[in-house]
């Protein structure tokens, strides 16, 4: 292995692989370092991969990538203890090219994606932990790994080391995250026959469905659950802010069991056999928690840069786009022979100008807002369920009587005013 590379990318997830792929494609001598046995062996996500951002890197990827199912329906369940109000959109325009998104299993997908970067000329080094960045004269000039003689040098280092990003922290780019800046998600992959999946989820052969779960899925704690269809497995998970688990003293896997045995969920997963149990943190601090993403000789991408849109459960797409923009910037910087912070700052500008920065800004106060005002999840979702039940139960009462009862159930005028104020507040943080 040569001692010096043009670029070193730390971490083979969507951001790191995208970056290494783009660099290798441009003829840059790039080393991609992964701490796991193989790319994907440490990586977890609910499972939605967005076609558009992936295609910008590998055109026509869907013809060869190990994808599970193209999603044709997205459901949203507002759950109470033994009921749910469900919204859904299903569209056949998502069932064929160009598709909207796909479910994937990350251990399979990341290995494939990394193999594409290797095909382009990237060098992949597995089973290697980067312990620290080597800094000389205020500039990152390489990394020190846990291998013997583990120093590796490069003109530029890309930190794609995920949500914990110990490397960005050690460079002083961010402080330790707070428990209300990260969500702890647990997930299970459950084996179930293809045909049964398609019957239970009302799907044509090969098509997929996602269900997002709100409200009682997290016992009212800020967070969401999900149930996604793969080829012959289901991915079921639940994630809440770590601060919520601490406050309510709830064990994450007990919350998972609660969701799995919930009367709205149990019929979907009946007789499905658990295959794997996974836990992972999701950076949910959003725009306000973003670390410094550029310094001399170094760029930060993906989860390490906190690029997650918690409201729309997007992250892998932001990761890939950030990796691609980092690569573009590096190629341009190589042309200039200038890896100073000012030169690499082009990455930050491009990132913040793209949908990534725009969406992070749009929802910058959302997580904090819903954390601060728990009534949306704790009270309003159950209220919505009671109203639906009241209105749709035929019991001899007139519809006008029912409306009156629903209106009375909301509470006194003061409570109605509070709800109206909360709805306006929610609109303001989401608009």
């Amino acid at each position, binding site marked *: 292995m040569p001692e010096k590379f043009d670029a070193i990318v730390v971490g083979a997830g969507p951001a790191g692989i995208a970056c290494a792929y783009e660099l290798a494609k441009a003829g840059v001598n790039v080393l991609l370092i992964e701490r*796991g046995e193989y790319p994907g062996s440490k990586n977890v996500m609910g499972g939605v991969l967005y076609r558009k951002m992936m295609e910008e890197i590998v055109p026509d990827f869907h013809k060869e990538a190990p994808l599970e199912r193209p999603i044709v329906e997205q459901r949203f369940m507002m759950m109470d203890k033994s009921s749910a109000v469900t919204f859904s959109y299903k569209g056949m325009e998502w069932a064929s090219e160009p598709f909207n998104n796909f479910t994937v299993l990350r251990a399979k997908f990341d290995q494939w994606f990394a193999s594409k970067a290797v095909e382009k000329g990237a060098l992949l080094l597995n089973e290697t932990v980067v312990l620290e960045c080597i800094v000389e004269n205020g500039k990152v000039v390489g990394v020190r790994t846990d291998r013997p003689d583990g120093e590796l040098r490069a003109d530029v280092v890309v930190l794609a080391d995920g949500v914990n990003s110990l490397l960005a922290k050690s460079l002083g780019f961010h402080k330790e995250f707070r428990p209300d800046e990260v969500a702890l998600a647990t997930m299970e992959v459950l084996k179930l026959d293809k045909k049964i999946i398609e019957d239970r989820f009302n799907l044509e052969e090969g098509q997929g469905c996602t269900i997002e779960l709100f409200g009682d899925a997290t016992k009212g704690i800020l967070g969401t659950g999900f149930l996604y269809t793969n080829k012959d497995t289901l991915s079921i998970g639940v994630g809440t802010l770590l601060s919520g688990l601490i406050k309510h003293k709830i064990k994450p896997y007990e919350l998972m069991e609660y969701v799995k045995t919930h009367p709205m969920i149990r019929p979907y997963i009946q007789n499905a056999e658990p295959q*794997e149990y996974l836990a992972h*943190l999701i950076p949910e601090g959003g725009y306000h928690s973003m670390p410094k993403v550029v310094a001399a000789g170094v760029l930060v991408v993906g989860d390490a840069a906190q690029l997650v849109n918690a409201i729309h459960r997007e992250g892998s797409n932001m990761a890939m786009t950030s990796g691609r923009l980092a690569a573009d910037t590096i190629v341009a910087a190589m042309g200039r022979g200038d890896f100073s912070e000012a030169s690499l700052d082009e990455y930050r500008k491009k990132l913040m100008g793209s949908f990534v920065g725009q969406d992070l800004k749009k929802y910058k106060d959302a997580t904090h807002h819903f954390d601060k005002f728990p009534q949306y999840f704790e009270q309003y979702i159950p209220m919505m369920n009671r109203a639906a039940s009241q209105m749709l139960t035929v019991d001899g009462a007139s519809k006008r009587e029912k409306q009156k009862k629903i209106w009375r159930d909301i509470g006194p005028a003061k409570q109605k005013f509070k709800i109206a104020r909360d709805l306006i507040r929610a609109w303001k943080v989401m608009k």
Partner: protein
Amino acid sequence: MGDPQAVAANDKAASIEEKQYLLRFNADTQSHLHVMDTEICMTNCPDKICTIFCPAEVYKWEEVRMHVGYEGCHECGSCRIGCPHQNIKWVYPKGGHGIVFRLG
């Protein structure tokens, strides 16, 4: 409610031990997790909240000490961030070691 057999199937992995049994680990001989000062857990931390929120139940309080079952760690980072006393030293396991996800 429902088919009792189905309920039984869904409850199969109910315990954390059974969930952890589904996983592959290539454990190092040395722990990558260290409680820096057990005295803090003992005297200043009545909740010992890490024993509750850790998704793999790595932390178990045993009378006077914190048992750290690092071999079953998912490497999520929650304990480092969630410890109210910043009392956990957390690094990644050695390259190639630790948890090996096969699917998700």
